[in-house]
């Protein structure tokens, strides 16, 4: 979550205190990113977390903080397995 806060602050806008929570939609009805900014967030996250963020992340409803964090955890778990 702290890393996501850092990415959002450096590339888009600084989240207000308490704004970032699991259910927050990062899109226009929540944090306020438009479709191009949402894609840029995935690109920046790919560089930062060193794992792919596929377009299918957009296929299951709004992209929330919780889904992004869960994706990173899942990728790291898969990475750490022999």
């Amino acid at each position: 979550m702290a890393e996501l806060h850092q990415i959002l602050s450096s590339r888009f806008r600084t989240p207000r205190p308490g704004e970032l929570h699991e259910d927050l939609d990062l899109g226009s009805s929540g944090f306020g990113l438009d479709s191009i900014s949402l894609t840029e967030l995935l690109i920046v996250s790919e560089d930062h977390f060193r794992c792919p963020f596929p377009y299918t992340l957009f296929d299951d409803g709004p992209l929330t903080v919780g889904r992004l964090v869960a994706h990173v955890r899942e990728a790291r778990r898969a990475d750490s397995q022999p």
Partner: protein
Amino acid sequence: MTNAANPLVRDAEADWPDPGPAWKQRARHLCDATAIRLARAHVPSALALLGAAGRAANFSNILSPSTSEVAALFHWLPRGDLGRVARSIAALHLKNRAAIALVQDGRTADLARLVRWSDDARRADLMDGSQSTVIAACHVGAFFGIRAALHGLNRPVFMMRDLAMPDAASRASLFKRALEALRAGELVVATLDGPGGISTREVTCLGRHIVLRRGAFALARMTGARIVPVTCAWTRRSRIDVRIAPPINRPDQANHALADFEHEMAAGAARWLDGYLRAEPHEIWPSTLRNYLAAPQSPQGAS
């Protein structure tokens, strides 16, 4: 901004407008069904027939645009040319309805057989897989000809959209796929105008303040791809002439803020479109003509 329904002036993320009243949708379906029925017999003949019908309907004031609408946007045209241009725009409209109906009917290959490339050297350059390329399309001329022209080529093509994307999530997904396609060496086709998507800052075209869709410019910024405008035009024999313009001049990315880089590229694209439509006023779509007329005039006027 004068008209919230006008996609050439909307500056927020916009969805496609309401398709209009039921009678209009029924008329459209009837027109499409007729076009497909005619095209099953012989596509070029069907297109020629529809073109003639469009001219006749415009001459009889059944189908827009009027000569006064043409004169309002292309005010430098001689009076004697206005009627001819208006009739050509109406003919273009009906031919394009047929092309759209064919694509939606899964018959892009039929359209592809009509394609003629006007410049082999530029075609070869476009197919050069070593260059990351975004093809910029606009709603002018035989717009769906671009899909037909790229049908069955050796280089993989990703059509970002020439049909409606309903919401921001679909567009974000599409944009990410386009990015991945560019990185994989595919040609990506992005549409610069029309409804749906996020807008650039204001640019000037035909003496009007308009906005373009940001997708192509954002892709160029994020991937370093060049933007090559491609248009298609119907020929007198109902063939599709593919026209490839030189790449839009790319500003030095290191010296520009993100938004300024995209704005400079958008301004360059608008200059290209301005030049194209001044040379070929009969290639403008009737809906685009109306949207330009509803857009604010630039202080310099429509010089």
